[in-house]
């Protein structure tokens, strides 16, 4: 197992800038997830780490040593591909053992290790089959097995779950988590699925257009998004974000939108008069029992109700501004109801020029 460090990695394809000055540190045994919408350069970054593509600038360090001149073979890294990239002309056993064979391991040793890993992944009965005779889930396991069997310095996983159906994806996700807990490998994992990122990652790296927007534990990413992109990209349904202005009134800063006012809590006063964005997650909004104390309440009209089973999300309107609110599954609101919302200033996320204040 190894630690990984990226220093100011940049990459262009033609005139297009794919990565710009990406810094990242992954500790030994850490599960690091690269999260971002498609086209954000996360897969390219992964390929640079693997040595499949050469960065234009910057450096990749494994265990503190730069490996920029090393071939993939010399880096001793395992990778699981989105399409699994199983060798169609080899059996499962041959697929699993290929990396070992290429590294010159003796036949017996290969066989032993292949059987061991296959048993562990529950695919020991499939060893003689060819990839095309396997189901999607089975192929995924073989692909995982091919990476695991070599116990490499680093695992790279490129959206390994995206080709599975929803149910299977959840199971494999859990399994992956368990595997990591058992094996303690260093993992760099690419996904565009925030749920995967939040559930799997010890550390999440959110990327957009070739730049790292935030690095942190999932809870940090969720609770203290560094900018509006991270704020809206993480969380489902997305965080409510209002555009408006801070005004000083009676010695307190108040947030104004066209439709309502909010008490903005502790905000540095030099922002007074500046345009800001204010976000709040649906679950941080409380629905008041009655409409008393009207000064601190926002009166919202229920527009759409989405029932996701464990809870309900109410898409409401205050004036022309939409606000999504979580409610308990037992709540019995109807479309068109007007409900009072309480917003705790402490749970507001305030952004100025896109950055968290």
């Amino acid at each position, binding site marked *: 197992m190894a630690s990984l460090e990226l220093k100011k990695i940049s990459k262009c394809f033609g005139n297009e800038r794919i990565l710009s000055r990406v810094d990242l540190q992954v500790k030994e045994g850490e599960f690091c997830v690269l999260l971002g919408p498609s086209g954000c350069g996360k897969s390219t970054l992964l390929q640079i780490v693997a*040595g499949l*593509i*050469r960065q234009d600038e910057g450096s990749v360090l494994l265990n503190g040593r730069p490996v920029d*001149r090393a*071939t993939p073979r010399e880096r001793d890294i395992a990778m699981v591909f989105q399409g699994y990239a199983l060798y169609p002309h080899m059996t499962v056993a041959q697929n699993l053992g290929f990396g070992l064979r290429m590294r010159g391991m003796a036949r017996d040793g290969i066989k032993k290790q292949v059987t061991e890993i296959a048993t562990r992944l529950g695919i020991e009965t499939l060893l003689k089959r060819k990839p095309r005779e396997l189901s999607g889930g089975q192929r995924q396991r073989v692909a995982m097995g091919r990476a695991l069997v070599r116990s490499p310095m680093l695992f790279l996983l490129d959206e390994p779950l995206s080709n599975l159906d929803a149910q299977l994806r959840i199971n494999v996700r859990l399994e992956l988590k368990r595997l990591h807990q058992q094996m303690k490998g260093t993992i760099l994992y690419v996904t565009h699925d925030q749920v995967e990122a939040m559930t799997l990652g010890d550390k999440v790296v959110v990327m957009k257009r070739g730049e790292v927007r935030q690095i942190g534990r999932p809870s940090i990413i969720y609770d203290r998004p560094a900018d509006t992109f991270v704020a809206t990209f993480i969380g489902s349904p997305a965080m409510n974000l209002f555009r408006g202005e801070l005004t000083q009134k009676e010695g307190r800063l108040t947030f104004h939108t066209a439709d309502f006012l909010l008490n903005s809590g502790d905000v540095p006063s030099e922002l007074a008069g500046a345009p800001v964005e204010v976000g709040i997650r649906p679950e941080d909004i409380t629905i008041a029992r009655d409409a008393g104390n009207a000064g601190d309440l926002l009166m919202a009209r229920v527009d759409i109700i989405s029932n996701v089973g464990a809870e309900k999300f109410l898409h409401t309107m205050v004036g022309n501004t939409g606000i999504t609110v979580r409610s308990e599954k037992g709540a019995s609101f109807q479309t068109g109801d007007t409900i009072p919302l309480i917003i705790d200033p402490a749970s507001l996320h305030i952004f100025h020029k896109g950055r968290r204040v």
Partner: protein
Amino acid sequence: MTRKDNIFFLILLAPALFILLLFIAVPIGQSLFLSFHRLILSLPQLGSPFLGLENYKDLLHDPVARHSLWITLIFVCAATFFELLIGVLLALLMHHHFPGRGMLRACVLIPWAVPTVVSAQMWRFLLNDAYGMVNYVIFGAHTTEYIPWLALPSTALLSLIVADVWKTSSFAALLILAGLQVIPEELYLASRVDGAGVWQRFWRITWPLIRPALMVALLFRTIDAFRVFDLAFVMTQGGPADATNVLQFYGYKKMFVEGWMGYGSAISVCIFVMVLILAVFYVRMVGHRLLEASG
């Protein structure tokens, strides 16, 4: 792709390019050089003066060459068209699963495995006006109806086309078959589920996927057809009345029979330029997918 990889790729390319350079590019240069000179082997006293483009000018005004060009174009169009058509049909048949498929594949390969020198002789034999099988198959015992295929200007060229189509359809078929073989079966199953008919399946799935192979076949068949020479050499010697005097055979005679090296080289260069233009046109029109395909 790292820089190291690019250097490595160039190293991989080097031996092939070296051989091509040595055995083709340099000789092409020498031919080009010759085509700007007058060199008549049997008259060394004339030396080999530099003529500039005179050989090419003469060629433009040479009625025999113009006639040859016309014949060559007819030959190229007809031959490549039928070869590709039959090639696609053969490939589709051979791709089908049925007992005896291997035998069919072997059969189809036979014409291509017969050396052209033999196949041309064979057609000269089959097309004989007195004892040829072709006449027998068409007219049976009515010997008075027999057509002297190779003796009439119109049918002589047709005979050459038939002989070429017979021999080289399997070339196209083989290339296209290889293209068919990489089409995953699932695609067909999927389209079947989607309710596509045989015809739609062909146009929607088979056609786009075999297009690169078809393109290669078209390119190489056109190139070869433009340079057809041995069929004319064996079957008709360019006759009767120059009716099958294809351009390359004309060039061959100029160089190897008459020893008129400069003029013969000029003919070759012209063939080369015409094929080149045609190839670029093909690649632009149909082949961009092949060349642009991401690497």
